[in-house]
C-alpha cells in the first residue's frame, strides 16, 4: 500500500507505466517473501557455508579472530582417529537399533487396536500422546528418579522379585544408553500412533468388508490390507525416526552428559562439547558437517524411495 501511495503522489506518466500491475505484483511478492528470505539466508545459508569454511580451520574462540588458522583437512583427519567420535557414532547406531524398530512395531500394534477394535478412541489417543508433548527434560527428571540405583522404584521392584544386583541404569556404563533409549521409545510412541492412525483413515472400509465376505481372518486382513497400504507411512516414519535418532541430544545432555565413561555419548553431544565447552570452533564445525552429511544422505534416500513409491 505504501508503494501505491508514493506513486500516486509523484505520478509521472513514465513511472506509472513502469509500475504496471505485474511489476507491482512482483514487488509485493518479494516484499512478502522478504522477512522469510532474510531469516533463511542468515540462519540456514550463511551457517552452512560458514561452518564449511570453519571446518578447514583451527580456531579456539578464546583467542579471538586472529587465532584462526587454515589447516586444510586436519580436522577431518582428526575425526578419523578421535575415539570419542567413533564411540559417539557407534552409540548413535546402537541407539537407532534400540529405538526405531521397537517404537515402530509397538506403535503399529497399538494403532491397529485403537483404530477399530476399542471404544474410547479419543481417550487412547490422548493417553499415549501425553509423553510426546511433555517436555523431554521434565520427563527425564521423572525417569532419573525412577532409575535411581538404590532407592528408585524400578530397582526396588526388581529386587522384590529376587534380582539381587539390578543394573544401575543411567549410572551404569553398560545400561546408560539403553536407559535413555527406553525413555525415548516411551516418549515417541504417541507420535507414531498418530501418524499411523492418520494413514489408516485413508484405507477404504470397503476393502475390509470385501475381505470379510471372502472369509478373511483379522490377521489376514492386517497382513494383506493394512500393512501393504500403510507402506508409504511406514517408510516416512522409518526415515523420520532414523534421522531423528542421529540428532538426539537433549535427553543425553540432561541425564548423563554422555557418560558414564562416554558410554552414552552421541554425535551432537560431541559437537556440543567440542564447540561450547572446549571452544574448538573448527573441529566442532567439521563434526557438524559430518552430521549434515549423514542426515543429507538419509534424506536423499527418502526422496528416492518416496518417488519410487509414488510412481508405482
Amino acid at each position, binding site marked *: *500500500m505504501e508503494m501505491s501511495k508514493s506513486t500516486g503522489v509523484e505520478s509521472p506518466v513514465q513511472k506509472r507505466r513502469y509500475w504496471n500491475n505485474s511489476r507491482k*505484483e*512482483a514487488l*509485493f*511478492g518479494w*516484499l*512478502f*517473501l522478504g*522477512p522469510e*528470505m532474510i531469516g*533463511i539466508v*542468515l*540462519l*540456514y545459508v550463511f*551457517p*552452512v557455508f*560458514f*561452518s564449511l569454511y*570453519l571446518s578447514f580451520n583451527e580456531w579456539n574462540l578464546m583467542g579471538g579472530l586472529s587465532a584462526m588458522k587454515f589447516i586444510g583437512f586436519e580436522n577431518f583427519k582428526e575425526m578419523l582417529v578421535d575415539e570419542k567420535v567413533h564411540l559417539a557414532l557407534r552409540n548413535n547406531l546402537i541407539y537407532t537399533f534400540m529405538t526405531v524398530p521397537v517404537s515402530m512395531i509397538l506403535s503399529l500394534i497399538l494403532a491397529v487396536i*485403537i483404530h477399530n*477394535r*476399542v*471404544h*474410547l478412541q*479419543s*481417550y487412547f489417543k*490422548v*493417553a499415549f500422546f*501425553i*509423553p510426546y*508433548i511433555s*517436555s*523431554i527434560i*521434565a*520427563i527425564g*527428571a*521423572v*525417569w*532419573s*528418579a525412577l532409575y*535411581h540405583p538404590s532407592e*528408585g*522404584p524400578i530397582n*526396588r521392584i526388581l529386587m*522384590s522379585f529376587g534380582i539381587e544386583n539390578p543394573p544401575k541404569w543411567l549410572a551404569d556404563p553398560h545400561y546408560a544408553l539403553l536407559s535413555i533409549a527406553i525413555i525415548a521409545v*516411551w516418549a515417541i510412541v504417541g*507420535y507414531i500412533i498418530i*501418524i499411523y492412525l492418520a494413514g489408516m483413515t485413508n484405507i477404504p472400509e470397503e476393502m475390509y468388508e470385501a475381505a470379510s465376505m471372502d472369509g478373511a481372518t483379522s490377521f489376514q486382513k492386517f497382513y494383506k490390507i493394512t500393512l501393504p497400504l500403510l507402506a508409504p507411512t511406514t517408510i516416512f516414519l522409518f526415515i523420520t525416526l532414523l534421522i*531423528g535418532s542421529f*540428532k538426539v541430544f*537433549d535427553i543425553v*545432555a*540432561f541425564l548423563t552428559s554422555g557418560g558414564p565413561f562416554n558410554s552414552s555419548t552421541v554425535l551432537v553431544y560431541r*559437537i556440543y562439547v567440542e*564447540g*561450547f565447552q572446549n571452544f574448538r570452533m573448527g573441529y566442532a*564445525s567439521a563434526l557438524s558437517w559430518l*552430521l*549434515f552429511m549423514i*542426515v543429507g544422505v538419509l534424506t536423499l534416500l527418502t526422496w528416492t524411495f518416496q518417488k519410487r513409491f509414488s510412481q508405482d
Partner: protein
Amino acid sequence: MHTTKSKITKLVATALMGAFSVVFLVPLIWMISAAFKYEKDVMAFPIQWIPQSWNMIGNFKAVWMGNVPFHLFYFNSLKLAVLMTVTTMIISSMAAFAFTKLQFRGRGFVFGLLLSFMIIPEQATLVPRFLLMKWLGLYNTHTGLIVMGMFSIYFTFLMRQFMASIHNDFLEAAKMDGAGYFTIFWKIILPLCKPILATVGIIKFIWTWNDYQNPLIFLMDKKLYPITLGIQLFRDDYADNFAVLMMASLSAIIPLVVIFILLQKHVIKGISLGGVKG
C-alpha cells in the same frame, strides 16, 4: 452386522487397552504422586500411590517461592513461546501468501530452494549461529533466541499447502474493489487461514516451550532461563529432593497437557500433516 460376540470382544479389548494405557502412564502418575508427598515417602517401598501424608503445599512453596526463581523461568518460557509463535505465524503466512497468491518470476525457484534447505539439521548450524549471535550482540538475550526461532520453512510449507486451497475468486473480487495487497492479506486471506494458523501456532508453542538445546547454548544468565533450564537448575540444587523436583516437572508439563486436551484436534492435525519434531 454387530453380533453380541463382537460387542463383547470390543469391550474386553477396551478394558485390556485401558489397563495397558494406565501402565504406560505410570511414570507420570508416579510423578504426580511424588509431587504431593513428603520427601521421606517418595522412595518408600511398596510405593504409596496415594500419599499417606500430603505435602502438596510445602513442595509447591519450595518450587514457586524458593531460592530458585521458578516463576521467572515460567514467565521467560511463556514470553519466548508467545513471541516466537506470533512472529513465526506472521512471517510464515506472509511468505506463503507470496508463494500462492502473487505471481512473479523466481517464485517457484525460491520455493524449491527453501524446501531443499529443510534438510539442514538445526544441530549442524549451532556453531556458526553461536558466532553470528555473538557478533550481532544477541548472545545471551531473549531477542537472539526469538530471532532464531521466528523463521520456519516447515510452517511456511504447511501454510502454503493450505493457502493454495483458498479460491482466487476472493482475491480478484477484492482487487476489483481497489484493495491493496496488504489489505487482501490481512483482511481476506488470514481470516480464512484460521484453522491452519491455530494448528501452526499450537505446535510452535509446544516446541518452543519444550526447547532445551537453543537456550542451553545461547543463554548464560540464569535470569533469562526458560523452564527447561530451570528444571536442570532444580535438579542440581535439590539433588536429593525428588518431591520438589517432581513438583517442578509437573508444573512444567501441566500447561501443555491442558492446551493439548483442550485443542487436541488442532495438535493432532498439525502432527499428522507430516510433522517432524522440531
